[in-house]
């Protein structure tokens, strides 16, 4: 499903958070939104998911949807994973299919939950209360909740914020595989630039309420961008496989 964002603007009271943003996210691709703190990345995702009222258009395969219809095919994962409630992991993941659940949970629905728990290797936590898990484990549970209904559009807000390095790379590489295999459109925000560079098909860089640049990682990841947007000095290097990596040397001198 092609997600087209056209002239999207959002104000919070008198404060303008996003101004005239336009970009496209395509099926089978990961589109990652990056930018410094307070750039409006989360707000942008919420506007795309119609969780915030905004100006401009967000179209899915050329059509605009009401929120209740949108969540038939779209999953959204919140950034904050703090939660202590008397629900176990299985029940939390099951809620990801809330639009289609009947009073009795069907065998097929149960199978889908087990499948996604296996996929994320968290089946051993199925009967554990969510509050008993670590932040990283909870993050995987909410990703499982987002994936369980096989959505056409997946929106993940900082899906790796509570994960260690290994699990960050592991999870985003997993998301990259799922996105290609299922042909879904994945939109996410990330703070870890190296992960974003390595696994994104399309990068949207948001800075100062606007889109600074958009394109493939190789196109948009430049020393100039890192200097302008993140205010850091950097250099690029090639590893033994010839892949390029950028290295941050430190903050710009003020």
């Amino acid at each position, binding site marked *: 499903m092609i997600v087209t964002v056209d002239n999207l603007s959002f104000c919070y009271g008198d404060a303008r958070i996003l101004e005239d943003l336009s970009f496209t996210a395509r099926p089978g691709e990961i589109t990652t939104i990056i930018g410094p703190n307070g750039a409006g990345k989360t707000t942008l995702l919420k506007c795309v998911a119609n*969780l915030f009222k905004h100006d401009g258009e967000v179209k899915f395969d050329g059509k605009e949807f009401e929120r209740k219809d949108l969540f*038939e095919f779209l999953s959204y994962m919140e950034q904050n994973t703090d939660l202590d409630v008397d629900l176990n992991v*299985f029940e939390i993941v099951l*809620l990801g299919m*809330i639009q289609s659940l009947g*009073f009795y*949970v069907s065998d097929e629905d149960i199978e889908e*939950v087990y499948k996604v728990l296996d996929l994320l290797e968290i089946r051993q936590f199925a009967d554990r209360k969510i509050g008993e898990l670590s932040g990283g484990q909870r993050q995987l549970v909410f990703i499982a909740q987002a994936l369980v209904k096989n959505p056409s559009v997946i929106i993940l807000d900082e899906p790796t914020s509570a994960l260690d390095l290994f699990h960050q790379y592991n999870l985003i590489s997993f998301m990259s595989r799922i996105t290609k295999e299922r042909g879904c459109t994945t939109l996410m925000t990330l703070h870890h630039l190296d992960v974003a560079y390595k696994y994104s098909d399309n990068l949207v860089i948001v800075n100062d309420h606007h889109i600074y640049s958009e394109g493939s990682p190789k196109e948009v990841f430049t020393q100039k961008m890192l200097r302008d947007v993140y205010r850091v000095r950097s250099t690029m290097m090639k590893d033994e496989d010839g892949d390029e990596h950028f290295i941050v040397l430190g903050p710009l001198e003020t």
Partner: protein
Amino acid sequence: MSEKKDDGNGFQYGHYAHRKYLMIAAGILIAATVFFIDLFFSIPYISPSVLFEEFIHPGGTSVMHVILWDLQMPTVIAGIVCGAAFGLAGAIMQTLLNNPLASPYTLGISAGAGFGASLTMVVGLGGLSILGTYMVPAGAFIFAMLATGGIFVVAKAKGFSADVMVLAGIGLVFLFQALQSLMQYLASPDALSGIVFWTFGSLNGIEWNEVAMIFALFVIAFILIYRKCWALTAMRLGDRRAEALGIDTQGMRKWMFVLVALMTSTCVAFVGCIGFIGIVGPHVARMILGEDQRYLLPMSCVCGAIILVLADILCGTITSGREYPIGIFTSIVGVPFFFYLLMKKKTVKT
């Protein structure tokens, strides 16, 4: 069908769900048992066997018939239905307001009803005198709905935020309690005694048509609320996560609040402000069955009904003929049991 699929590896959701159904069935069995105990054993000076005989073969002596079918039966059924309604209302309020201390009374319904009842007992309410014995319930209901309307207006202006609703509720509770104190200050000794008795609540003297009214409202509210059980479960994850699952949290809070207010106001109008059940019933249910509202809502009803009927039994047994407000006994029965469950509950050590 459903929920029967087990998987051989570790946690089996099918068994887990079936255990919950069995718990609810066990709860219903206990409720039925306390219902019959209350029906036959809590009337002093009358042998349970005589009452049982009248139950099996109605139409014995006219006195026994009146005692069992016109006095005791509506009282005990009212206990079951009001207990279930308070339990259900408490579970919904705790979910909607994301607050474990919330009860059907948090938003000023009981305070409004208490003031309405006091006002009618002390100064009368003009045109309501034509209602005769229904004057006090009518006054209580009108002011409970006025309190509800006040909360609704404030909450609507602020997007039905849980915090605003709780704060507005606290404000209204203080206002109506102050007005009720004024009524008590002005009341004659007889009216004062009536106000105090009404404030604690009582099932005695309730009539069949009143029971029917409460029952009908409870059933309608339960069906309408239960249709949203998945959305209510999602709301336990917090508003933002529920919205990210496609739930209209504002709409849910608005309509659930109206349903709970109608159901609670009707119960309170007829039986008074019986406290504690709306808090403890859902907590007991939650400790047993967790937060999945498909199970929590019916279990909260069952727990509320059991606690209220147990309190009625205690009330009838201990007071031995003298009429005490049942609200006192709901706390005496409920608090020790609640403490036991709190201490038994597993906690995560940090």
